[in-house]
């Protein structure tokens, strides 16, 4: 079932300004922030990539996946398996391989889930993610419930020449930022490509798309696979940054957090996903600081957002503009 909520595909000026200012702030941040906060913002950027990847399904195609964390986790684990205990491994082949692995997992699972609709899709994506979770959780060879350590960050050297060293906190920060920008640009382009238009058409009316001769299942599977691969990119970065992966990365809380990020920022335009990821991670940090009963605050906050601001932060900007336009037309 499609989501009837209108999406903010064309960003209002105010939102574009927020994005540019945000980018400038992110570029400057490592020069003013402490190590702790540089790491925290790196994590936020990784989550922003993860949230953008989900937005392709949730906001653009109208598919609510409650199992997106599975692909995030698969790529993190791929890095863990590929990195030997005593030496770093090359970035240049492990990154594509991990991303391809996540994409492949999404392709296989997607083959089953795109046959379903609405509530079924939600439940089935969640169940398959849980299957992947148990695969890693139950098998000692795959790390079991304790997870795996990654002793070294990937090595970026090419034939002995080292363009940048990811072990450096700032370098890793800028590497992640560059990937956020690349993924955003790529997805914005995709949004206005024939593929993106077809996906948006599926969200709005899948039956009509099929009647017009679009093979909607193939389109949905493409979106699912691509979203899984991009989630894998985020998972790879997560593994590289934290040096540790465990089954929780694939858990249902992680998937639900990503949904929350996309909702919080506003769906279907990728900018909202970035804003939402930053806002959500920051709130999580603040709530955990305030009380050990942070789940109560987070739960209350989520319920409040759903009840009060279902179109997200950017949606509120757009809403004001729409209201104003309507007002003007009344007066004019």
């Amino acid at each position, binding site marked *: 079932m499609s989501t009837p909520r209108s999406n903010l595909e064309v960003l209002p000026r105010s939102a574009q300004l927020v994005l540019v200012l945000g980018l400038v702030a992110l570029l400057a941040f490592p020069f003013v922030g402490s190590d702790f906060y540089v790491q925290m913002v790196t994590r936020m950027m990784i989550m922003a990539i993860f949230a953008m990847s989900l937005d392709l399904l949730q906001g653009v195609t109208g598919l*609510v996946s409650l199992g997106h964390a599975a692909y995030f986790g698969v790529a993190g684990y791929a890095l863990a398996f590929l990195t030997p205990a005593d030496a770093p491994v090359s970035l240049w082949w492990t990154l594509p391989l991990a991303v391809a692995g996540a994409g492949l997992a999404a392709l296989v699972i997607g083959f089953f889930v795109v046959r*379903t609709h609405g509530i*079924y899709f939600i439940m089935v994506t969640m169940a398959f993610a849980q299957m992947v979770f148990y695969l890693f959780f139950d098998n000692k060879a795959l790390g079991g419930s304790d997870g795996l350590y990654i002793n070294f960050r990937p090595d970026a050297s090419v034939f002995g020449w080292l363009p940048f060293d990811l072990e450096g906190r700032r370098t890793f920060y800028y590497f992640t930022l560059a990937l956020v920008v690349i993924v955003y640009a790529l997805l914005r382009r995709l949004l206005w490509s024939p593929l993106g238009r077809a996906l948006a058409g599926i969200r709005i009316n899948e039956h009509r798309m099929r009647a017009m001769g679009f093979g909607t299942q193939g389109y949905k599977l493409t979106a699912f696979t691509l979203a899984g691969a991009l989630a894998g990119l985020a998972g790879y970065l997560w593994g590289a940054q934290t040096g540790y992966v465990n089954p929780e990365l694939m858990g249902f809380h992680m998937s639900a957090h990503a949904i929350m990020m996309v909702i919080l920022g506003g769906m279907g335009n990728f900018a909202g996903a970035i804003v939402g990821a930053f806002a959500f991670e920051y709130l999580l940090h603040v709530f955990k600081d305030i009380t050990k009963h942070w789940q109560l605050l987070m*739960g209350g906050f989520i319920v409040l957002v759903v009840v009060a601001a279902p179109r997200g932060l950017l949606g509120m900007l757009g809403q004001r503009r729409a209201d104003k336009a309507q007002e003007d037309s009344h007066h004019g």
Partner: protein
Amino acid sequence: MDFATFLIQLLNSVQYGLLLFMLAAGLTLIFGIMGVVNLAHGSFYMLGAYLAYSLSGHFGSLALAILGGALLSVVFGLALEWLLFRHFYHRDHLDQVLLTFGLIYIFEELRSILWGDDVHGVPIPQMLDWSIPLTDTLSYPAYRLFISGVCIVLAVALYLLISKTRLGMKIRAGAFNRSMAESLGVNIKLIHAVVFALGVGLAAVAGMVAAPVSSVYPNMGSSVLIMCFVVVVIGGIGSVRGALIAALLVGFVDTFGKVLLPSVAGMLVYMLMAAVLLWKPEGLFKQ
């Protein structure tokens, strides 16, 4: 596997399946009639287990605890429906997913504040604390049979309620064509409240009768919730009969998978689901 072991595993699988059915029946009814995805359904199972722990300590009797707990959980369900859920019947699934995910956090934290994060045991009542000998060494605990018995009684009661009573007729009418039922004078809001409270009550009772066997621990709702989703997907949304058959099937595959293929046991049930999806994407008994 000799016959006694097989019998024990078979009884275990039936007991597990019936327990899943109690949860999945409420879940599938709430899906089918109100169109709500309820991720917090597992929390009602947890609520039941913790109520059994507290009340059985308080009353000194599990039977009284189950009666009292069932009443409390139904009242809780009515309050929750009135306060939150009834406003979400017409919202899209995404909002329902988020609302109920937020509720999981709230319920888990309230559980942590009220009961702490320790694992607790609930004693098996003395009357049922014995075993049926099967061979010289193997026996089957009577309490597990009691669990199955309670579930069967409730399943029959649910069947009679839905198919033989006036209330059940209204529930079916509401599920079949909401606006038609409404214009024929059925108070659909009341029906929704009743169905929701019924679902909460069934889940809580499942948690209560299972508590002495499973013990009582944090996050116990999550894993059982996902199993229930699998059951509902296999059975077909809205079909109570489908839920029963799917629950027994899942119980069977899970229990025997753990014995025969321990390395992939955790995944077998999901493979079963994948196979059903290939064959019938809308479940075995789509209404």
